[in-house]
């Protein structure tokens, strides 16, 4: 069985801030990482590899040369090989563009029986690229997957649809969106990451994928980012001082005045 995991190199979303003056996201000195949900997808792939015979796991990492260390970390989780997407990953807002790049990359490295993706990405939270890849490849998309097993040619997955847990079976090939509740991703040690030799990572350029950068910017681009504004809701931000005995009555009085206590 061949598994490809699509993963994304992102800034740690808990550290990114918004600059009200420049209307830009502040990412200088912000730590980078594998997008959280993609780690769940990697863990699911490695678990399938450990459970079966003759299973290979390959990772396609979006994020350019800056993502090399992140890719090595992903490979160190237990993948056989990693591919760095040199271009085509720059926008978090255009899943129709991202899916073309990913679908081409999947085909370029020989296709897969199962393509595992995080349900959403940490920067975009679209949840659209994986099903779009499935549509382009003409295969089923199963998500959000909370339980997963596979044999030689079929996958059995349980999906959490909110009001019902639905278990389905589908033949290969398939694209799966892995829910974060499915597993606890392993954390590779620094030594394991260092031991990932350079012959286990390769670069895929846009030329390799037959997608010239100019075409991506024009004919495949479907979205324009016009501007950003702060995502914070305006709040009063009043700090109530004092010991619990002093502060609690003040809080309750304030909440009564707001009319939010029955």
């Amino acid at each position, binding site marked *: 069985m061949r598994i490809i995991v699509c993963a994304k190199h992102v800034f740690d979303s*808990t550290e*990114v801030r*918004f600059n009200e003056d420049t209307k830009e*996201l502040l990412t200088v000195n912000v730590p980078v990482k594998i997008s959280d949900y993609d780690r769940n997808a990697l863990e699911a792939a490695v678990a399938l590899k450990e459970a079966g015979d003759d299973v290979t796991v390959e990772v396609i990492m979006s994020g350019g040369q800056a993502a090399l260390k992140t890719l090595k970390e992903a490979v160190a989780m237990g993948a056989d090989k990693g591919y760095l997407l040199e271009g085509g990953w720059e926008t978090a*807002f255009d*899943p*129709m563009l991202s*899916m073309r790049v990913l679908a081409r990359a999947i085909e370029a490295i020989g296709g897969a029986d199962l393509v595992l993706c995080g349900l959403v990405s*940490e*920067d975009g*939270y*679209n*949840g*659209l*690229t994986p*099903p*779009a890849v*499935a*549509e*382009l490849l*003409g*295969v*089923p*998309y*199963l998500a959000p997957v909370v339980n997963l097993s596979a044999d030689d040619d079929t996958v*059995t997955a349980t999906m*959490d*649809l*909110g*009001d*019902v*847990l639905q278990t*389905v*079976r589908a033949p290969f090939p398939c694209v799966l969106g892995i829910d974060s*509740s499915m597993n606890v991703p392993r954390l590779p040690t620094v030594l394991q990451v260092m031991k990932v030799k350079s012959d286990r990572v390769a670069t895929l350029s846009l030329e390799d994928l037959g997608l010239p950068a100019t075409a991506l910017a024009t004919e495949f*681009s*479907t*979205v324009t*980012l*016009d*501007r*950003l504004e*702060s*995502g*914070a*809701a305006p*709040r*009063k*931000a*009043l700090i109530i001082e004092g010991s*619990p005995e002093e*502060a609690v*009555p003040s*809080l*309750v009085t304030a*909440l009564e005045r707001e*009319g*939010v*206590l*029955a």
Partner: protein
Amino acid sequence: MSPRIVVAGYDARGTGAAAAVAREMADSIGGAVDVVVLVPSAIPGTVEAFVEEAGLAGRAERVVAYELPPGHAYSGVTVADALVDAAAGNDVSAVVLADGPFAREAAARTAVRLDGACASMCSTVEAVAGNLVSVTRPAYGGVALAHLTLKASPAVVVLAPGGASAGTATGGAAPAVERKALTVSEVAGRVTVLDETPVVKTCDLEHAKVVVSVGRGFAKPADLEIIDDLVGLLDAEVGCSRPIAEDFKWLAKEHLVGLTGATVTPDLYLALGISGQVQHLAGIKGAKIVAAVNSDGRSPILKNADYALVGDLYKVVPALTEHLRKRKANGGAGG
């Protein structure tokens, strides 16, 4: 040919909310609204009862009820099949979906097939000149709000979960109902449903008037007990931040509030030991008042709450519980 907005939702409530958004878009460009429904699996009663429940009178000109062939169910593929069929031969400027099971898959597949653009978690959607659609949606987990123009047409948009309220039905002419057999894509037939287990819901965060929410400030799962009396006194639902549901798994995911969980709109949101990461804050934007208790004076929740107590929640929660208990015994306000 007048431009059309095509709508789909998982249930009557979502469909009504999506239709309300579509109506405004259509009115601004002189267009019409078509609503797609799948029968029989998606609708318990008749199509007419669904139209009534979703409040589609005045919101949609046409409802197309697609009959699923035997053995097929509501899925991302079958919804996309219906949307693409409804769009065929029409000048479609946008497709609007309520968020819910299969919504993003249906949206993505529809956008790929119609060669359009696609966006999810949209809090606003507007039709602008020349078949363009502009939307707002979160960037980087809600740190910022992005204003996007979807320049490929049609724009396929999924509304933010809980973000669009159905409002009150405007009344007006009932839509014409058409029935059609759905031609299902081959790929839908590859998936076999083996089992369906209903999930028993123990909370209803979306409709709660008061939410008491817990975060990493609690040291161990047994400690969550200290909020029980408080929750009872406030008649609250229990929410939590991501680490509690996803990392530690102390509470079921149905309690998760935030970008990947519930979007809540209570009168009072009481955040206990929650640091206030943007993904969490994105889910509580609609709360009337946010109150927070946190021991870390630099925690982001303090700037993102209306009232905040900097202190040890293990001391504040019992004190607050006791105070509210006395207040209740004294007959409410002023206690």
